[in-house]
């Protein structure tokens, strides 16, 4: 760890950037801790997949993007949504199924969308959104733009045919997409070693003739560096990249799955939790003299208040009107 963060030209100082990272990760963490509580109270229903432990990926990766770039992600999407700049209010109201949610209460946890932020969802079928990212990148190239499309998915999604088809065409046509594998080592209860003939997910990139990198994704700087390289390549040369982010999920697969189920040991979990991305960054900032305990506590309080505000807002937001049931099935 303790690597220097990559600075984009004219951006904030290291200390400012670090603080922004810490704030972003801590917001995601506190937001989801409260989501778990709301789920237990029945305020959130259905499937709810928490991102706790993986926050350095959303934070580091999305810090590289410009507002006119695009993001597509899977159902484990709270972290990316917040890191992209969706308000905790809009996200929490969506989880509560309320009118002020970012999808009007119709999508729920797995389907967060925000067109203004070029945040293209929130997709529930494993791997189904990977071709979408190639399509977005195709459209960028088609229109002669220099944006990029970042696509997030779990490592188990690389076993789906859509991954292969989408990456092959991205490599063939050279479109500006960055494919980010969040390798948390388990697809539900199945460890990578039980699902892949070759556990080296990046080995697949060679097939598509695209560059690949593996990243220690508990280190937000490493994430930012790797994504910066990939985004630069995509912008300048329309070359896609495959990035394997090595991470770990601290919670169960979803709210209905135990934290350390039969498929992984408590010892492994505890071991991995020592590499909590927030603690790593916090330690780094403490050593660099960028933050002290009082400042950290103050930041945390601020964030907790912000999340409380989101909760109150969501709770007060009305249910969608019944007419909404028939709205947006097709464009009239």
């Amino acid at each position: 760890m303790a690597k220097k963060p990559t600075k984009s030209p004219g951006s904030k100082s290291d200390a400012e950037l670090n603080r922004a990272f810490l704030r972003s990760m801590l917001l995601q963490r506190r937001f989801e801790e409260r989501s778990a509580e709301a789920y237990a109270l029945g305020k959130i229903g259905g499937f709810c997949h928490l991102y706790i432990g993986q926050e350095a990926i959303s934070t580091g990766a999305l810090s590289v993007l410009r507002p006119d770039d695009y993001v597509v992600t899977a159902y484990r999407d709270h972290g990316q949504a917040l890191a992209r700049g969706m308000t905790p209010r809009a996200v929490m109201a969506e989880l509560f199924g309320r009118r002020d949610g970012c999808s009007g209460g119709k999508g729920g946890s797995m389907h967060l969308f925000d067109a203004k932020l070029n945040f293209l969802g929130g997709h529930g079928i494993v791997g189904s959104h990977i071709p979408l990212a190639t399509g977005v990148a195709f459209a960028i190239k088609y229109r002669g733009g220099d944006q990029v499309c970042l696509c997030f998915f779990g490592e188990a999604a690389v076993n789906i045919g859509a991954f292969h088809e989408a990456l092959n065409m991205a490599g063939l046509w050279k479109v500006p997409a960055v494919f980010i594998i969040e390798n948390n080592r388990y697809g539900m209860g199945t460890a990578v070693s039980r699902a892949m003939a070759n556990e080296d997910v990046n080995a697949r990139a060679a097939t598509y003739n695209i560059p690949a990198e593996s990243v220690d994704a508990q280190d937000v700087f490493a994430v930012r560096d790797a994504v910066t390289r990939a985004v630069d390549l995509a912008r300048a040369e329309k070359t896609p990249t495959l990035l394997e982010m090595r991470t770990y999920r601290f919670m169960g697969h979803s709210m209905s799955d135990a934290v350390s189920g039969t498929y992984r040991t408590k010892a492994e979990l505890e071991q991995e939790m020592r590499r909590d991305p927030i603690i790593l960054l916090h330690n780094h900032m403490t050593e660099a003299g960028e933050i002290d305990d009082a400042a950290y506590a103050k930041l945390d309080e601020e964030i907790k208040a912000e999340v409380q505000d989101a909760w109150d807002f969501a709770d007060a937001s009305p249910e969608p009107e019944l007419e909404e049931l028939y709205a947006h099935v097709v464009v009239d």
Partner: protein
Amino acid sequence: MSIVTYRDALNQALREEIQRDDRVFLMGEEVGEYNGAYKVSRGLLDQFGPMRVVDTPIAELGFAGIGVGAAMVGLRPIIEFMTWNFALLALDQVVNSAAKMLYMSNGQFPMPMVFRGPNGAALQLSAQHSQAWESWLAHIPGLKVVTPATPYDAKGLLKSAIRDENPVVFLEGEMLYNTKGDVPEGEEILIPLGKAERKREGEHCSIIAHGKTVLIAIQVADALAKEGISIDVIDLRTVRPMDVEAIAESVKKTNRAVVVEEGWELCGVGAQVVDYIQRECFDFLDAPVLRVHQADVPMPYAKNLERAAKPDAQKLTAAVRKVLYLE
């Protein structure tokens, strides 16, 4: 009496059939070490080992096709889809390979296999995870489509499906797994595919249902019985082939019918039932046949909208009252 859950009834059927016939194996995501995403396959890996209970990667198209290949050379695969929503990825194999193999090979390659898993809306799972697929699948010649409503039916129909020489699509109600019913122990339960069952006897109106809506129909019939209205509840059990005689017999007796299903209206199973009724029972009808189904929209997440979208006892009761001209 031996009261078991729908889930355990299915588990018994799998266990007995894997035990009985060494060509039978179960394959799918999380079916083994995890004991099944919905715990239907609990304990089977321990009992039969990893060649008979096979965990797969998330690769629906691939493992469905692997099942077809294995069936072509003499095995009897049971392919579990974690839910039918994910089976859409595999429909090419179900429809273009399994359903047509016998026909295009002029009878040389039968497909004795079962595709099974949870189907239908659950609770607040939103548009991509809450869908009922029977009308899609029933459309395909070459497939049989089974929709058990009770634990007893789940066991008896699954055992028959596994022994059938054809590809059988077996749609378990995602919300039915915890429901309970009598499944006598030590009895060989085999329910013929293609036969409906009368779940309640009545004379004022027929309700034709399948899968989860059978429970709603029974609930409505029980409630209306208190008002002196008696309902004939016909559970199709198998959507393809459909038991036309059972439908006709009931409607000729009651002269009125309501068809209820979880799926969407257009081209739904109910549309087919109404078609049969108008052909077979036209002269017997005292009222237009009504249908109750999901609102014609993708399933919304918000609780109130979801409630409004789903068929339920209230909507079914209203339809029955309407065909009885009570409203």
